[in-house]
């Protein structure tokens, strides 16, 4: 499945708006200066996604927060961190020193909140710009390897649209990297593309 450069530009802009909102919220919660950036969005298939994550060294234990949604578009959004990056992120917000060995349910709970803020802002941005209302599940935290994480999500299949973006967090002097993944169910992909096209026809962000 492929998208035109204009469609990808719209999606990129939706993500940029979402990360801006997420950064403001994280800033407000932590009282720390938080900067979020998503330099590039890629359209991948499931095999390419798994390979991309393996190439990033994601064969080991991962921490993942998932937010499922339904409505005009149906699917899942995920933010995935290596345990090392997850520990760094939790430390950035809580100042509680931790390491991979110490990453426990309490730290995972903090990561759930941070991941949820990012996902809410990103998916919320999609819903706003596409002018639709979505229904959301309660955010889920999953810990495991990449196969376990992908197979635990009923919305993920070989078919459908997968958007992938590396996400850079800068919390004061600390740099953390996570991976944002948006799966859109095959059935609702035409609606998603239609909504993006409609947005473009209206003049996109310059309207």
């Amino acid at each position, binding site marked *: 499945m492929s998208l035109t450069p204009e469609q990808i530009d719209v999606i990129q802009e939706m993500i940029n708006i979402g990360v801006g909102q997420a950064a403001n*919220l994280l800033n*407000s*919660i*932590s009282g720390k200066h938080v900067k979020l950036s998503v330099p590039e969005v890629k359209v991948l298939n499931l095999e390419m996604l798994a390979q991309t994550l393996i190439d990033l060294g994601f064969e080991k234990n991962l921490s993942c927060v998932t*937010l499922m*949604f339904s409505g005009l578009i149906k699917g899942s959004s995920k933010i995935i961190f290596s345990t090392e990056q997850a520990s760094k992120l*939790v430390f950035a*917000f*809580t100042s*509680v020193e931790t390491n991979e060995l*110490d990453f*426990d*349910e*309490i*730290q995972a*709970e*903090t990561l*759930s*909140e941070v991941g*949820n*803020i990012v*996902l*809410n802002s990103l*998916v*919320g941005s999609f819903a706003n710009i596409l002018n639709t*209302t*979505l229904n*959301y*599940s*309660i*955010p889920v935290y999953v810990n495991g390897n990449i196969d376990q994480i992908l197979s635990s999500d009923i919305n993920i299949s070989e078919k459908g649209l997968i958007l992938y973006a590396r996400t850079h967090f800068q919390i004061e002097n600390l740099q953390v990297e996570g991976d944002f993944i948006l799966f859109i169910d095959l059935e609702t992909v035409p609606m998603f593309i239609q909504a993006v096209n409609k947005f473009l026809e209206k003049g996109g962000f310059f309207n």
Partner: protein
Amino acid sequence: MEKLTQQFNLFNAVPIGVCVISTNFDIVFWNKQLEIWTNIKSPDVIGKKLIEVFPNLNHPKYIVPISSVINGGPPVVFSTQLHKSFFPSYLPDMQPRLLHTTVSNWKCASKHETYAIISVEDYTYLSYRIKEHKRMRDEALKELEMRKKAEAELRESEQKLRELNATKDKFFSIIAHDLKNPIGAFKNVLELLYQNFNDFSKEEILEFIEPLRESSAQLFALLENLLFWARSQTGRIQIEPIEFDLCDLIRQNISLLKLQAENKQITIESDLPERILVNADINTITTVLRNLISNAIKFTRSGGKIVVSAKVVDGYAEVCVEDNGIGMSKETMEKLFRIDVHHTSLGTANEKGTGLGLIVCKEFVEANKGKIWVESEEGKGSKFYFTVPLAEI
């Protein structure tokens, strides 16, 4: 309001806290579990604004996400580490209860209204259990570390014991063979002379005495090394570094051993700068020099040559005792300097040895913070090197 509250009564039967608020933040339901955790009764909060009952929530970090949920946005999570007191709650010992809070949207189909359901889970005991597990894990790791340390100490102690045992074996081997046999020969010759003194001519007596004289010199050198080594093993060798001219010491020792070399028609030369000031214990370095030069004499054939040189390399004086004698194989070189391997070789004039001299040299050089090594080729000769720290200028 009462009818609406009844719809949520099901939440009184669950072990989590549940609070429902309307679009204008009015509390419409407060379940039994929250009553227990917060000590606030349902009638005291129903109909009141959330931020009126909990002023701590009157902050954009709560108002903005909760408003978003009420307006149909995704659920939000307030974790225990980032929000110590969403709904303040205390344990009997007045420690704060750790409450994990999730706010999600609920649309009332019949009334066409939306609400926010605030569900609260108690993570306090989970947190305690995690802390306890971590404590137990840390203790186990500490114990493992201690066991590893103890095992390493045991291995080190075993190694020391092996070395001590090898030292003892070496000591007894020297006493049993290298001292007993020549002294036994001394005894026999002296006994023969004593019993038959008048039967021998002066010339014959001189013939008896000559090998005894040579043998006694070798025995003396052996005893000297044995005593040095025994003292070093019992920690009784005192290394007292002083500043001295190493070249001068080399020249003195060459001069002392020249006669021994000339007896085998071996020449000793030196290749030395005017002076090299070193900081070391002069007695032990003298022993090293004497042993290395004596060894060179021992393993060089008649007509051979020995060169003793010294130069400065990387803050050390490097001494080399080179001979063009019989040399040695790689296997033999590996056995030198080792107490746990028995190795002796006869000299070119069948001079006997114990292998003790080089072990003493190694101990003394290292005690002076230097290094000792050998380069050799069978049939071509050997080069023994050692280093001594330079004096600070």
